[in-house]
C-alpha cells in the first residue's frame, strides 16, 4: 500500500485513511493529522524525493496561514479564493527563498532555509498590526463552501470541515504521487544521486529543484491555511523554526521512500505528542528517545515496518526498492 505504483491505489488508500480516521479518534485530531499529513508530504518532496534538506518549511506553512487568515478576518472573499491566495503567497515566498537557497548544497542549503525561516518569523513577530505578533492572528472565520449542485456547505460543522481537509489531502497526495513518478520526479531523484551527471545530460538541476521547492512551498501554504481555519487562530509558533523541525521529524518517523510514509509520521507525531504530554510534563524527553530509536533501528521510518511485515508474511526475499520512475 505504501509503496504502490498505481494512482488509483494511492487515491483509494488516501480515501480509506481519510474515511477511517474520524472513527478512531476525535474529529479535530483527525483533521489536524490530515493537515500535517499534507504539510509532511510536501516537505518530503524536498527531503525524500529531491534530497534537499530544508529546515525552513514552516515559513511557507506560516505564510499560507497568515494570508488565508488575513483574507478571512478582513475581507469577504470566498473560501476558494482565500485558499488559492494562500498557496500563491507561499509559492511566491518559496520562489524567492528557493532561488537563493538552491544555489548552495548540503549544510549551506540547510542553513539558508533555516535563516530565511528565522527572518520570516521575526517579520511576522514584529508586524503586529497584521499578524497579531506574539498573540497570533485571531478571529478567523470559516466561510461557507459554495459548491455547485450541492449548494452552501457550513464549515462551522466539524465533520464538514474535516471532509474539506480530507478532499484536499487526497488531491495533494495524488498530485505529489504523480509528480514523484513523472519525468520531473526522475530528474529530481537523479540530481539527488549525482547533480553533476544530471547537468551533463542536459537537465537544469537548478530549475528542477526550484520547481520542487515552489510546489512544496505552495502545498505547505495550503496546509497552513487549513490549520488557520481549523483553530480559527494563526499562532506565531506555527511559523517558527521548531515547527520546521517538527515536520522534518514527521518525515523521518514516517519514512521518506513513499508518498504516504510522512502522513503516517504526522499521525504518530501528533498522537505521541498528545499521549506523552498527558503522562509527563517533560514529554519532549520521551519524544526525543522515540525519534532516536526510529533513526537508529528503523531507517526507513515506520513505513518500513509494513515492508518488513509483508516480507515476513510472503516469505519472499527482499527486493531492492527502485525509486523514481517505474516501468512496470
Amino acid at each position, binding site marked *: 500500500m505504501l509503496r504502490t505504483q498505481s494512482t488509483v491505489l494511492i487515491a483509494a488508500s488516501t480515501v480509506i485513511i481519510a474515511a477511517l480516521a474520524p472513527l478512531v479518534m476525535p474529529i479535530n485530531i483527525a483533521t489536524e493529522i490530515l493537515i500535517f499529513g499534507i504539510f509532511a508530504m510536501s516537505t518530503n518532496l524536498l527531503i525524500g524525493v529531491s534530497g534537499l534538506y530544508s529546515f525552513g518549511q514552516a515559513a511557507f506553512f506560516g505564510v499560507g496561514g497568515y494570508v488565508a487568515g488575513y483574507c478571512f478576518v478582513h475581507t469577504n472573499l470566498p473560501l476558494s479564493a482565500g485558499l488559492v491566495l494562500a498557496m500563491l503567497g507561499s509559492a511566491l515566498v518559496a520562489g524567492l527563498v528557493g532561488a537563493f537557497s538552491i544555489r548552495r548544497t548540503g549544510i549551506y542549503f540547510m542553513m539558508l532555509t533555516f535563516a530565511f525561516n528565522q527572518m520570516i518569523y521575526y517579520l511576522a513577530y514584529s508586524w503586529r498590526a497584521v499578524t497579531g505578533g506574539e498573540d497570533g492572528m485571531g478571529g478567523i472565520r470559516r466561510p461557507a463552501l459554495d459548491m455547485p449542485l450541492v449548494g452552501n456547505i457550513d464549515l462551522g460543522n466539524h465533520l464538514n470541515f474535516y471532509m474539506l481537509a480530507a478532499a484536499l489531502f487526497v488531491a495533494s497526495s495524488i498530485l505529489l504521487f*504523480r*509528480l514523484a*513518478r*513523472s*519525468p*520531473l*520526479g*526522475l*530528474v529530481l*531523484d*537523479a540530481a539527488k*544521486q*549525482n547533480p*553533476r*551527471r*544530471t*547537468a*551533463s*545530460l*542536459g*537537465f*537544469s*538541476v537548478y*530549475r*528542477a529543484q526550484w*520547481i520542487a521547492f515552489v510546489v512544496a512551498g505552495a502545498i505547505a501554504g495550503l496546509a497552513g491555511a487549513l490549520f488557520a481555519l481549523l483553530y480559527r487562530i494563526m499562532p506565531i509558533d506555527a511559523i517558527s523554526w521548531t515547527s520546521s523541525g517538527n515536520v522534518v521529524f514527521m518525515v523521518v518517523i514516517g519514512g521518506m521512500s513513499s508518498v504516504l510514509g510522512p502522513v503516517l509520521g504526522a499521525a504518530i507525531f501528533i498522537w505521541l505528542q498528545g499521549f506523552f504530554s498527558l503522562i509527563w510534563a517533560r514529554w519532549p524527553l520521551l519524544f526525543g528517545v522515540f525519534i532516536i530509536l526510529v533513526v537508529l533501528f528503523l531507517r526507513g521510518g515506520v513505513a518500513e515496518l509494513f515492508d518488513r511485515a509483508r516480507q515476513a508474511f510472503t516469505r519472499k526475499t527482499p527486493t*531492492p526498492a*527502485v*525509486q*523514481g*520512475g*517505474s*516501468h*512496470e
Partner: protein
Amino acid sequence: MSEVAMGDAAMTNLAMQQVATPSATHLLEAVGVTKKFGANVVIENLSIGFAPGMLHSILGPNGAGKTTLFNLLTRDLPVTAGEILLRGERITAMKPHQIARLGVGRSYQISSVYLDLSFLDNVWLAAYRARHGGRMGWWKRVGSYGEIRDQACEVLEKLGLIGFRDLPAKAVSYGDQRLLEIAVTLATNPDILLLDEPTAGLSQRETERVKRFIESIKQQYLIVMIEHKMNVVMEISDRVHVMNRGTLIASGTAAEISRDEAVHRAYFGL
C-alpha cells in the same frame, strides 16, 4: 591502474606543439585556455582543436591536465583564461546543461551512473532529454513514454545490456556500469562524444569489447577519448594528442606520435 609508467622528467620541449588557431575545420576547440586552482596551474595557455569525423585520443601522464581539459570543454569547471569554441561559437560562459543540449555528450572517468536507478531509467533520462529538450513533464508517468523507452532499450541492446534492463545499476559489476555509462552518454544523442577513460577498470575481454564498439561508431561522431591503454589508442585513433604538465606537446597520427621525441621524453625521461 593501467597507467603507463613515467617519471617526472622535466618537460620543456614544446617544439612539436601545434599552435591551433580558431578555424572552421574544428568542431570543438579550446583556444589559449588556462586553468589555475589557486597558485597551482593545471593547464597553461593550451590550444587544441578537434576536427569532425575523427577519433581523437588524448594521452599523457597522470596530472597532465587531461580530465581538467574535459571539464573546461563541458564547463564543469570555468576557465581561468581563454575561450572554448563549439562549431566556431563561443561557449565559454555557458552552463554545463546548455552545452550538453548543443550536442556534447560526456562520460566520466569515475562511473557516474545512477546506482539506485534501473538500467532502463538511467538511459531513459538521457533519451528523454534528447527528445524533449530541457522540458520536464510533471504529470505523465515515466512508464507511459513508450517511444522513449523503445529508444532507451535500443541503446541498451547496442551495448549488450538489455538483459540488465530492470536491475538497479548498483547490482552489477563495475565493468557493466562502465558500459552503462557509455550507453547513457550515447542516449543523449550527441554529435560529439567526450569519453574519459572508457576502459578504466575493465578486464581485457571487456576492454576489447568497448574498443570494438567505439571503433564501430566512430564514423557517426566526433569522438575525443582520454585513454591510457596504448593498444586501444594506437589501434583505433585517427589523431593522437599528447599532453604533459598542462600543455600539448605533440599531435599527429598514431604512427607519428610513436616516433615523436618529445613524447618519448615525457613518458620515459630519455
